């Protein structure tokens, strides 16, 4: 199948945006409601049989989750990444399990890591985090470091040899927590958060500034 006919198939979907990144990577942006149609089309007509992965990206600023379906064709030797965005507050989507069986694993993973519910997915239950009862940890508003600081006491590691070394002026002169809190080595905030700080508009508990 040539590139043109593939484009033709893809263009059957309304409001699709196709980007050819390079020879074997095509990025496709679609509306959430036409994603399953797209997958059905490319699986049925262009033999994209292999669902390589489903990724969820949390765009907290836009209040959206981005779902990316990476689908590979063994015949075309080409990977289509289908991007779609769903609402973050009412995070629900349709399963693609009936098209691709591996979706079971990825959807379950996204469900417990992000809390996106996939309607019709066979096993929407805890899998990896069976003994975790907090909020889905991969969401951007979950602060792993703050959680660690308040749950575990792990920092008190000051063996004698380390003390001797630092007395002599060698070893780790600044304690790790000081580095992190003072931010001398690197700025802790992400670029995005720095941009936000510029606007003097800090959301969430985040990093204690």
């Amino acid at each position, binding site marked *: 199948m040539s590139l043109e006919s593939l484009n033709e198939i893809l263009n059957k979907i309304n409001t699709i945006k196709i980007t050819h990144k390079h020879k*074997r*990577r095509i990025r496709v942006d679609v509306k959430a409601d036409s994603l399953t149609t797209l997958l059905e089309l490319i699986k049925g007509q262009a033999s994209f*049989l*292999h*669902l*390589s*992965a489903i*990724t969820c*990206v*949390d765009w907290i600023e836009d209040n959206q989750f981005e779902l*990316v379906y*990476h689908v*590979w064709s*063994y015949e075309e*030797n080409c*990977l289509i*990444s289908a991007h779609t965005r769903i609402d973050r507050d009412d995070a629900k989507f349709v399963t693609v399990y009936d098209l*691709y*069986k*591996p979706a*079971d*694993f990825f959807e379950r993973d996204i469900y417990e*890591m992000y809390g996106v519910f996939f309607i019709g997915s066979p096993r929407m239950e805890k*899998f*990896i*985090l*069976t*003994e975790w009862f907090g909020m889905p*940890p*991969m969401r*951007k508003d*979950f602060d*792993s*470091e703050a959680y660690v600081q308040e749950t575990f006491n792990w920092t008190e590691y000051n063996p004698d040899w380390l003390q001797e070394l630092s007395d002599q002026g060698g070893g780790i002169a600044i304690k790790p927590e000081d580095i992190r809190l003072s931010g001398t*080595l*690197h*700025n802790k905030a*992400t*670029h*995005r958060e*720095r941009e936000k700080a510029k606007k003097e508009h800090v959301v969430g508990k985040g990093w204690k500034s």
Partner: protein
Amino acid sequence: MRPENYQAVPLGDSNEYEIFIGPNHPGIEGNYALKLILDGDTVVKGTTDAGYLHRGFEKLMEGRLWIQNLAIVPRICVPDPAPMEVSYSLAVEEIMGIDAPIRAQWIRVLQLELSRIAAHLFTFGGHAATTGMYTPMYWGVADRDLVLDLFEDFTGGRVYSIYNIPGGVRRELPEGFLEKLSHLLDYLESRQNDYDNLLFTNQIFVQRAKGVGVLSKEDALEYGVTGPNLRACGLAFDVRRDDPYLIYDQLEFDIPTQQKGDAWSRILVRRDELFQSIHILRQVIAKLPSIKGPIRTAIPNPLSWNVPAGEAYARVESSKGELAYYVVSDGGDKPYRVHVRGPSSMHAVQTLEFLAKGARIEDVAQIMFSLDACPPEVDR
């Protein structure tokens, strides 16, 4: 509240009973568990229980600098760490729009193939040990150690080398390394006869492994099986050839396949792949001295390094199958999102459950090891 393993679950009036394999069991690779419902010796239903190795890698990476993440990516799959580094570096390079210099790409291939040899030597022993033959494990791990010695020689690390960096590799090969490598390959080839006699032509092992965990080509495609497990079903697909990265398109190698799709085919494919890797390494040894040039493209100061906004999906053929990193950058000094698609996440969950159903209890461990599942890739 007791953990689940300790609650006796009555199963009604049937003859079925429940048995746990793992998380601490010699028949399980790593820290992983299988809950089996048995009727006599036959598995009625197998359910996997993962998460024992969960560290929240993807979350950790979002909180660390681009360069810091290099230290933790190899830890996602312990027996075969090199593809992890390379895959992550490739993804970052793609976002930045740079390429590693040619010499660095050859050195990366060298590292990848050595890592593949080490991983396969490890797998043979594990697979044989599930059937009660321990000698291949002792031999295989000892021979793998020789490969690790070479790793230590040129990367500085025995297992986790942290040798790749977006834009190239960190160090030049030490002097006389290629001769050492050549000696090692000679030694490994001289061991072929021993391994064949002990394991691959051992009639009892063949009898045990044939017809166990049969995966048809259709099922394999449906369950997203990749790598040697897919090639054992008769589909000659290899990311190295069909979605080439680095300089694999300039190398000559076969893609070994088998038709049956059972445990025996899978171990044979791995055996052949081992020798293909040796073949590739010989080409690298021949070619590498003639390639001069830098080993690293200059990147900005890693401590304040902002990768431009973008996303990339980098696929690499690891010893287990198709490994992919999906990296998203928002232009900051840390990744916005990193998603790891470990090949074992497909093999160790759905495929294993599918194959375990109807299998005998003595074959369950063998099925898991023949799929070469690597639990940390599932848990991450």
